[in-house]
């Protein structure tokens, strides 16, 4: 076998990495590319053709909030560096440490661990009412790495609101790990506004103990390359897992939602709903996988992906996957892709609505389902507005 010829980007990353398994993996395999299953539709190697040196510190004023979150403590990461640190709610502590050597086999996750400015650990020891708003702001054209560790003690609960805002053309690479002890409950509501020039990979690794609950809602508008990867390792019995994703893609945006949920305990209840619309030359990728281990009986898991294609040049690729080793389970997945029903449009136009209004209404209804699980009404409305505004702006999401 001929040795892999590293791209400039890979050479740069290699130089920045300490010697070890990760550096070796990068040297022999390169960045994930279309030849690697799981990256076949989202080739990071190609996306990162242009070299991205490590980013400089953020200069200039922070952009105004894109989401007003009431009753929340805000933590801002600008180009990967934690900026302000206000008072944390009772029951939440924060620690900062230097970057850690990585044993990760997932390359982007490993890079985030090794190259992040600091490893930030948030510990949550009891039910926290106040929301925690994490703003990740990036600009410039460098590589930005973040590494966040979140630990929820037994019975603790928290609601994270997160926004990933990128200006210019940086490479944003984040890793967040979530450790959910027994009976803990984490809610994440994530907004990713369109970033047509930015390349972003966000990994979320979640570990769950018995009776824990994890609710994640993600609204993504994509970018030059955007990938959200969620891996859940369900260790305990009686878990509740909800993943809801909506994507709205226009221009040449690329958005990849990849997830793997591993069920090891008894009687987990998993619901995964992904809905999206693509227009112009945008491309959506959905990869979902449910793994049910031997003995993980009574698991009930349901995965749905539905996409609307609104233009000739758009593309939707999907891979809803099941891997099941237990016989007393109910697992299902569904996938459907199509255009808006012309009969429906005709019907509503007959009733005096303009085509624009009809589309907005139908798409709004289609995507609205995803926001259902956000119980905080103000937040749900705010996110709903983001979708509605995008629709009104027509081709500019």
């Amino acid at each position, binding site marked *: 076998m001929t040795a892999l010829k590293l791209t400039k980007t890979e050479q740069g990353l290699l130089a920045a990495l300490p010697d070890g398994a990760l550096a070796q993996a990068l040297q022999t395999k390169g960045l994930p590319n279309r030849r690697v299953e799981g990256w076949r539709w989202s080739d990071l190697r190609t996306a990162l053709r242009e070299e991205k040196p490590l980013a400089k510190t953020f200069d200039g004023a922070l952009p105004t909030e894109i989401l007003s979150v009431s009753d929340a403590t805000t933590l801002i990461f600008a180009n990967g560096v934690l900026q302000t640190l206000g008072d944390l709610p009772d029951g939440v502590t924060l620690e900062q440490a230097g970057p850690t050597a990585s044993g990760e086999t997932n390359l982007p996750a490993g890079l985030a661990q090794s190259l992040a400015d600091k490893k930030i650990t948030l510990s949550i020891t009891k039910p926290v009412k106040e929301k925690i708003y994490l703003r990740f702001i990036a600009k410039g054209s460098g590589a930005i790495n973040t590494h966040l560790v979140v630990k929820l003690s037994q019975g603790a609960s928290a609601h994270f609101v997160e926004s990933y805002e990128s200006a210019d053309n940086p490479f944003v690479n984040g890793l967040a790990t979530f450790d959910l002890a027994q009976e803990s409950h984490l809610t994440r509501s994530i907004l990713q506004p369109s970033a047509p020039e930015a390349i972003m990979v966000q990994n979320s690794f979640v570990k769950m103990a018995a009776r824990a609950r994890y609710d994640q809602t993600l609204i993504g508008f994509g970018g030059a390359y955007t990938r959200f990867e969620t891996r859940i390792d369900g260790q305990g019995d009686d878990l509740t897992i909800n993943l809801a994703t909506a994507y709205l893609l226009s221009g040449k945006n690329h958005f990849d939602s990849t997830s793997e949920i591993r069920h090891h305990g008894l009687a987990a209840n998993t619901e995964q709903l992904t809905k999206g619309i693509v227009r112009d030359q945008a491309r959506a990728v959905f990869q979902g996988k449910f793994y049910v281990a*031997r003995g993980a009986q009574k698991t009930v898991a349901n995965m749905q992906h539905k996409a609307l294609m609104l233009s000739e040049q758009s593309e939707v690729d999907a891979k809803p996957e*099941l*891997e*099941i080793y237990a*016989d*007393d389970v109910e697992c299902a*997945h569904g996938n459907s*892709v199509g255009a808006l029903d012309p009969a429906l449009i005709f019907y509503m136009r007959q009733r005096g609505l303009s085509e624009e209004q009809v589309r907005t209404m139908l798409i709004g209804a289609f995507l609205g389902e995803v926001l259902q699980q956000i119980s905080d009404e103000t937040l749900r409305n705010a996110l709903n507005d983001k979708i509605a505004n995008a629709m009104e702006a027509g081709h500019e999401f």
Partner: protein
Amino acid sequence: MTDVKQGIAKETVETAKALETYKYGFSTDIESVKAPKGLNEDIIRYISAKKEEPQWMLDWRLEAFQRWQTMSEPRWAHLTYPEIDYQDAYYYAEPKSGAKYASIDDVPEEILQDFEKLGIPLREAEVLLGVKGAAASAAEARTNPDPNSTPNGEKPKVAVDAVFDSVSVATTFQAELKKAGVIFMSISEAIREHPELVKKYLGSVVPVSDNFFATLNSAVFSDGTFVYVPAGVRCPMELSTYFRINEANTGQFERTLIIAEKGSYVSYLEGCTAPMRDENQLHAAVVELVILEGAEIKYSTVQNWYPGDKDGVGGIYNFVTKRADCREKNAKVSWTQVETGSAVTWKYPSCILRGDNSVGEFYSIAITNNHQQADTGTKMIHLGKNTKSRIISKGISAGKSDQTYRGLVSIHRKADGARNFTQCDSLLIGGDCGAHTVPYVETKNPSAILEHEATTSKLSEEQLFYCQQRGLGEEEAVALLVNGFCRDVLQELPMEFAVEAQKLVQVSLEGSVG
């Protein structure tokens, strides 16, 4: 079967135990001539010379071999098997008395008997029902009144091409088919007698360098079937090929090429078995279907290669590339497969829907038991306008087996109005098996409508209870429910196969309850 539930009749248990073993595991003692062990250019020259092939065919093989040496074995499937030593096998074996016989009377009695035992009489006069290779029990079928007989007592005819190790030993009803203009012969004969057709179409659907196993096959293929149905002809009988691996340590690499000209129709059946042996044997086939304007090919397979014993020792490694090319408008292809055999199955019968309005169908039942592994599915490539495809896949896993449905539906930019419906259901019987679904869906056209559904479940306790209350044994009840689960696919099989397949479903699962 380790634990037997109380209340199951002893006889049932014993019958089930007996059926856990493989019926076609006998081998026939017949002297054979083999190429030396191993794989190199000389072996390929040897095979080509044995078949008296023209130079172009040899060149084609050698080029494939060169390509193959640069390729590596695909390992993306959900299968685990030890490294295959491609040098530790025979690539060619034929009965000593020669490859092809002028008349059925010259075929050695041992071979005729071998096929007879499999339920495939090769003497035309004896052909009653045709392929019984997949029958749960040929004897049983004989004692039961045959549900397929036509009202006047005539049985439908099936022409058979019998492939024994590396050679085709007999092809029946050739004369009658010739009258209709249908060419039905072994591929070796076709290379000699119809080189222009073979040259035109061979490798045009599955290119030489398509994948590792197809390339290997292109280099070393030994025999297989060639069918040519001229324009406007509806083939007057079912055509079928029966593949039998007899020799130990021998791989079988058959190549099948079927061409359906404009407006023609043919239904083709394929069956396969092998003796029980402790070592694993390799089977790497390539099947190419070319379907022209308005033509239709219905291709049915009952794959019952030796699956290995209860502990997973032995069995066939089955790596098959099957692809149909609907080259012109209104063409139609329908793959139906019942997969119950082989230790390892790697098989994705595919449809390239190039012509406008062409239709591809894939109906599959895969049943794995003991230590079997199957990774199977289909690819539907929609290139033309208003192309339609349908995928119905039913997977049943029992024992310690693992099974994966892997499929691709791809809608290309110009495939306006394309439609696909996919349904893959998996059933797990027992807690030691696995069932997996890996569908890939790629859509580049907004006017396409794609739907995919998949479920995984176990047999409903309620339904089982209901059946048992009405006096059925547990295994009978399971068989009944499984047959119901598979019905969508079973009904797509030609009559000749449907009965056999139904029995096969039953047999493969016997012993899995408890």
